[in-house]
């Protein structure tokens, strides 16, 4: 089983705040890796370093190497725009573009990247992969805000899929959704892992236990432990992991 992403000695922060400390971790290909940990432990910052979104904030800084298929994404000859196409992201709150129709939201990515041929097919394909096609196929010209929260999030997933990424990062994708919508998205993630590498940040341990193959536990900017989910939850090696899992803090 090969690694899609290898993170080596990653340090990151904002100004004088050192958020991530010497993170080294492997993200296996075509598997779901969950990042868990209490609020403020750096989980979000971590995934945002994987698609170079972190550096968009004016005071942000990054050190270390993140290898995508063996090539450091922070090399000077690498274009962040290209990385962001290959590593997609779904955010905590659904963020469809309100000034565009459902169709145009999905078509936006492919159009920019010059994948103009057969847009209709790409849109339908992405919506099917996101398990949203049947619900919206008759109203592709409508605005996205007419959809429910869960549907909007699946729209954002379809939008991310449309640019044909290799990795999809999910940053607490279900925290704004109800249990039914959450279940739908979890099912979707399990389907997607066949073709994509998934990293999911979650504060919900049960969610990690349900869908993740591998789990990493972060605490105060450090990677405490990571391994197969079953092992992390049933047999944690580090006491701090055990404390977090059993709910003693966080």
């Amino acid at each position, binding site marked *: 089983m090969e690694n899609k992403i290898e993170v080596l000695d990653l340090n990151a922060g904002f100004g004088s705040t050192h958020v991530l400390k010497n993170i080294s971790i492997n993200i296996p290909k075509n598997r779901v890796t969950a990042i868990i940990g209490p609020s403020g432990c750096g989980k979000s910052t971590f995934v945002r370093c994987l698609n170079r979104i972190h550096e968009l904030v004016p005071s942000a800084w990054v050190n270390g190497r993140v290898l995508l298929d063996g090539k450091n994404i922070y090399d000077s000859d690498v274009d962040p725009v290209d990385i962001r196409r290959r590593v997609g992201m779904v955010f905590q709150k659904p963020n469809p573009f309100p000034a565009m129709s459902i169709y145009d939201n999905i078509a936006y990515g492919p159009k*920019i*990247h010059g994948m103009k041929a057969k847009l209709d097919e790409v849109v339908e394909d992405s919506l099917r992969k996101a398990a949203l096609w049947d619900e919206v196929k008759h109203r592709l010209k409508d605005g996205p805000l007419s959809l429910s929260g869960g549907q909007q999030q699946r729209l954002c997933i379809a939008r991310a899929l449309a640019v044909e990424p290799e990795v999809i990062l999910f940053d607490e994708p279900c925290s704004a959704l109800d249990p039914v919508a959450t279940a739908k998205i979890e099912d979707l993630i399990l389907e997607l892992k066949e073709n994509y590498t998934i990293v999911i940040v979650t504060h919900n341990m049960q969610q990690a236990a349900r869908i993740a193959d591998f789990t990493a536990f972060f605490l105060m900017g450090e990677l405490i432990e990571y391994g197969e989910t079953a092992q992390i939850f049933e047999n944690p090696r580090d006491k701090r992991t055990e404390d977090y899992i059993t709910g003693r803090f966080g």
Partner: protein
Amino acid sequence: MNMLSRKAMDRLFTFFCIASTALAIIPLGSMLYTIFVKGFSVISIDFLTKLPTPAREAGGGFGNAIQGSFIVVGIASIIGIPLGIGAGMYLAEFPNSRLSRIVSFTADVLTGVPSIITGIFAYLLIVLRFGGFSALAGGVALATMMIPFIVRTTEEAMKLVPAELREASLALGAPRWKTSLAVVLSTARFGIITGVLLTIARIAGETAPLLFTAFNNRFWFDGVMNPVATLPVMIYTYAISPFEDWHAQAWGGALVLVAMILVLNIGIKLAAGRRW
């Protein structure tokens, strides 16, 4: 659309945005530079204190225009400030009545009245009625411009006062009117004063409302019912005249006017910065 052309578009766009900013600042720089260079040599004690002389005669000044500006703005303020603050208070204290909504909308719309129209208004109302140009007419024209702005700024300043303060006063048994005056008005007084001063700075430079109300005068102020010289009107008259020495004096007047307005604006911003 390959990567190279997308990058090129991005760079071109960034360049356009920077260029736009530069293009807007260049005229400003040119204006300030010209005003200082051409106006500075004209400024003297004489210029600030003497009456204007006929063209090509040296030694004249804009003394009466500076005096007149203060007087006309003063008249406008006496009329406009109480009316504006009163209406603004009403809008802030009783925002849910139908009158409030009508007044609010009308005031908003009135802020967009072209300045020359206020001149026509004051002409018809005052100049025709009393048979001549007058400082009073000029003051009324400027007051017509002031009132909508002061209504708005007063309303906003009072609405910034936290509801908790108002409720605390009412809970202590203070009547509405006392709460309004003693608590809300005094807490908001700084914002209200700032709004008034900014409006004054704005109307002090207006010319159009004065062209046929206060008109112009080669002599000192001579009573509220007579025409009076003002700085903006003098600048205009001298600028479009065919005399070169009058052109130079126009730049001098411009320097004085800009200096007064800038000082007022910077003073307000500094004071506001310190208070908040």
